Structure formats: C-alpha cells, structure tokens
C-alpha cells in the first residue's frame, strides 16, 4: 500500500467546488397560510375526537358559532363600536401629545434632557397598575378609559418621534439653513418628513399597545366594549364567548396592522 507523499504537488482538474450555499431562507407565503389552516383543522379534529376538553379549550367551530351569534344579535357591534370609540379618542390624544413632546425633545435643548428623563422614568410603569389611580383621578366613566389608553400610547410615541427627529441627517438641516429656510419651514419640510418613517413605525407599536390596554381600561365601570366582554365571559367561564372576544381583539390588531401597512406604502413610497 502506497501512502500519498504530503510534499508532492496536488493535481487539480474539474469544476471548482461550490461553497456559497445556505444562509438565505426563502419566504413561502403559501406554507405559512397552510400551516395555520392545518393547525386549526387539527384543533377541531382533536375536539371532535374527545381528546381536548371543550370546557378548557373550545373548538374552532364553537368559537365561530359564538361569533356568528354575537354578530346576528347585534351584541358584536355594540361592544365593538364602544371599544372603537375609546381606541380612537385615547390613541389620538396620546399620539398628538406624544408627537408634540417628541418633536420638542428632538429639537430643543430646554426640553431634551428633562423630557427624556421624565419619559424614561414613567414609561416602564405598567399601565394596568395605574388603573385604580386613574379611577380616583378621573372617575369610572369614559374619561379614565380614554386616559389609560392615551397614557399607554404617549410614551412610545415620544420616544419614536424623538428618535425619528434625531435620525434626520443634520446635513439636510444645514442645507435648509444655507438656503435661508426659516426654523418653522425646516421643521415642517425637512424634520417632520424625515422623521416620518420612525413615527409610522411607532404607530404600529402604539396601536398594538392600545388594543392590549383596552382590556385593562375597560375593567372598571364598563358595561360594554370588547375588553369588558372578554372579562365578563372569563368570569362566567363562558369559554366560547371568551375565545370569540379574543379572536375579535386579534382581528382588530390585524386590521390596524393592515391599514398602517398601506399608509406606510403610500407615504413612504419614495423609499
């Protein structure tokens, strides 16, 4: 047996071995959708075969039936419209205030450090813990619910707006100044449009937070609203309606995400 001599030159011929494969996963939307449908089908089958206790986990068909009944009886609209109103008011108020402070923090020295200090201190407080305080301050009417949502929306908006303003290239601002634009014109025509991508990204976050807080906000004094509906169903161990309410909340989140996606597409098509 001859062993190859390590010092002899090695002969090469043939194709060069390919070494750059992998690390590039492809997106297959059909696979995603099919998986979700498959899981739901499995869930339904499990319930029908008696493997899943319907008390603890209602099957998809029961949830769909509960949703249908809610829609037909008008209950769904009653709760949904009440929540929608609170979301609209609370989110808008928190967003407007957050945009204003975020801009100020991003642009002025007076407000930058104090503003960021206050926001950083108050932001981590779980809003759910503040609900009893809000009741004392604002009562159990609509006010405390709108304020809870506004509060939860305010802080991420400030942070994202300030970050967006910071991200506007200083060279663009100098360019505006060099062409004699006023401070107001620079803010309106350069800073705000430049911060818009960050602001819209922030909207995705705050919209999700608002929907999550809806349940907390509607805990006190609400006899209507998706959040209060979910709470009541949970309390009564009415798991079919509980899951139906959760599905509605989930769909609300998806709808908001879709709308924001379209908004981004339209406003940011220059990217």
């Amino acid at each position, binding site marked *: 047996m001859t062993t190859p001599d390590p010092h002899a030159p090695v002969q090469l011929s043939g194709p060069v071995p390919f070494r750059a494969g992998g690390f590039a996963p492809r997106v297959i939307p059909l696979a995603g959708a099919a998986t979700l449908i498959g899981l739901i089908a499995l869930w339904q089958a499990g319930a029908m075969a008696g493997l899943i206790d319907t008390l603890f986990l209602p099957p998809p068909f029961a949830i769909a039936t509960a949703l249908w009944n809610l829609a037909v009886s008008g209950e769904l609209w009653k709760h949904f419209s009440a929540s929608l109103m609170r979301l609209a008011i609370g989110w808008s108020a928190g967003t407007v205030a957050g945009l204003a402070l975020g801009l100020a923090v991003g642009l002025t020295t007076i407000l930058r450090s104090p503003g960021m200090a206050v926001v950083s201190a108050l932001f981590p407080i779980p809003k759910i813990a503040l609900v009893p305080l809000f*009741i004392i301050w604002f009562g159990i009417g609509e006010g405390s619910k709108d304020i809870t949502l506004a509060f939860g929306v305010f802080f991420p908006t400030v942070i994202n707006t300030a970050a967006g303003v910071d991200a506007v290239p200083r060279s663009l601002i100098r360019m505006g100044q060099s062409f004699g634009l006023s401070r107001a014109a620079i803010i309106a025509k350069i800073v705000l449009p430049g911060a818009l991508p960050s602001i819209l990204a922030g909207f995705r976050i705050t919209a999700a937070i608002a929907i999550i807080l809806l349940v907390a906000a509607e805990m006190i004094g609400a*006899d209507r609203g998706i959040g209060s509906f979910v709470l009541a169903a949970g*309390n009564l161990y009415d798991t079919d309606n509980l899951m139906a309410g959760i599905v509605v909340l989930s769909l609300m989140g998806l709808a908001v995400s879709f709308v924001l996606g379209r908004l981004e597409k339209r406003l940011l098509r220059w990217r």
Partner: protein
Amino acid sequence: MSDFRATRRALGSLAGAAALAATIRPARAATKLRIGLLHTLSPAPLYLAMERGYFAAEGLEAEFRFFEAAQPIAAAAVAGDIDIGITALTGGFFALAGRGALKVIAGGLHEQKGYEGSAVLASPKAYEAGLTGIDKLGGRSFAITQFGSSFHYMLGRLAETAHFDLKSVTLRPVQEIGNMVAAVRSNQVDATIAIASMAKPLEAAGAAKIIGWVGDLVPYQITAVFAASRIISGRAQDVGAFARAYQRGVAEFRAAFLLPNPVETDRAIADIKKYVFTGDPDGARKIRGGVGWYDEGAGLDVADVTTQIRWFTEQGLVKVAVDPAEVIDTRFIPPLRQS
C-alpha cells in the same frame, strides 16, 4: 435450670418485647385536605374549627388556601389546587358545576330577614336626589364586581321582589369590592351593596346612606361549601370528616354570636382574630358588628340555590343547562328544612 427453661425464658422475653413494640407503632397519618376560602370575616366558623382542632380530631390535616376573590376558588377546585372551597355562588361557579366538576355540599353565609347581613348603599348625591328606598333603584347606576357575581344576583332578585326593572339599571362592573364602595362614596355611581361591617361605618361617617337590607327582601344562600367532584367520588370519607368538623365550628360560632344568650364570645373573637383583624385594636368591635348568619347545622338552602340557577340561566349568564339535582349533594350535611 435446664437449657429448655432458659430457651423458654428467652423466647418469652422476645415475645414480650415484640408485643410491646407492636403497641408502640405510630398513629395513623392524617390525610391532607386543602380548603380554599376568602381571607375575610365571612368563613369565621372554619377559623374556629381550625383553631380548636376539630379537623385534626377527625383525622384531617386541613390546610387553608386564601384567595382575594370568589371566582378563582371555584377554578382552583376544578384545577385540583384545592379540594374543598367556601365562597359565593356566582354565574361562573354554576358554569363549572354544570359541567360536572363541582358540587355544593353545605350552606355558608345566609342572608336572613331581620338579620343585618348585606346592605344596599346609596351615594350621598343620589340619596339627596330621592333614592331613599330599594324600590327606587330603577333607572339608576349600580356598582357590582362583575357580571354574574353574587352582587349582580342580589340586585336582580331585589328587582323581582321590589318591582323595578333590572334592565333600567346601568350596571358598572368595577372588579373589586373596594372599588364598589369607593365609587359610591365619590358619587360616581348611585348605589351598591356592601356587607354590614363596611356599610355601617360608612353611614356613620356620612359617606353613604343605607336604604335597605338585602336579607329583608331576598333571603339568600350567599356563600356555600362545595367540593370537587373527584374528591366526593374518590375520598367520600374525608368529605364526611370535614363536614363533621365544619358543623362543630358552625355550632360554636352560632353559640358565640347568633343565639339569644351568647357564650364564650370573647374566646371566639380571639380565635377569629388570628385570621382577620389581627392586631387591630378595634378588631373585637368589628367582628361583633360584622359576623354574618349561619344556619343551624350548616344546612344548604336548596330552594334558594335552585332559584339562583334559574335566575342566572334566565339572564343568559350561565349558558350550559344546569340540573340542580346534579350540582347539589346533601348526603354529607342534611339540607335546611324549608319552613
């Protein structure tokens, strides 16, 4: 002495030693029983039973598990975290019991005519505006903990007996009993229900007005003892042991607080103070003023529980069909005699 005799004596000693050893075997180990209850004054008879060793005497190693609200106690029993619970019967409870997971086995607190249990409170502003009696609750706002709670039920039955329209009352679910009271004091709702130990001090302070007592209009099995179905079927003798200990506690509770010539009230207060109002200098007075009514023998008011099931079902708060016979099991403690 021959070898034979020595062996016999040795054997005899051995036998004696063995016989002695046999009598010094350890006592039978007590079985564990986990009892879920609200950390309030209302389960006072159980505190007495625990302090006075009645559970131990029945061979039970009873363990209290305290909860802050009624709903989780029922859920804990279903999930197996506790074996027996005592709390308010709510819509949620019947939804679980209706599916076979729980059974009511004895009575607890009972709203009684002539006994000040739960009061209907009006806010100062509503009282000024004319809410001076329970029959005037129509069209007002009312604070409850949650839909399907005992407070919701009481309001519903008050509506039936005092003839006002329940649908005209705006319900405000506020989750916690503390919030109910706060809402009334601050005039954010017109009325609510609170137990005597909370209601009386409020009226004394001028923060609210008592416009009636629930028990006068609607006698009501407000709390009851229930057990997980698996415990009843698998450990019936333990449930029986619990029942006996419980009845002793109830008897001594009634003797100390409810009977015409109370005996040993101070000793009962001292035992109760180990669980509630501990260290409170005013505790004795609060206990005296706040204890509720327990029926003799802790019998369950079956007729009222049946009414509760009917009401919750009619209101759409319980969606499963609940057969009273299936969810009540009175073999451990005889039901209340219906007069």
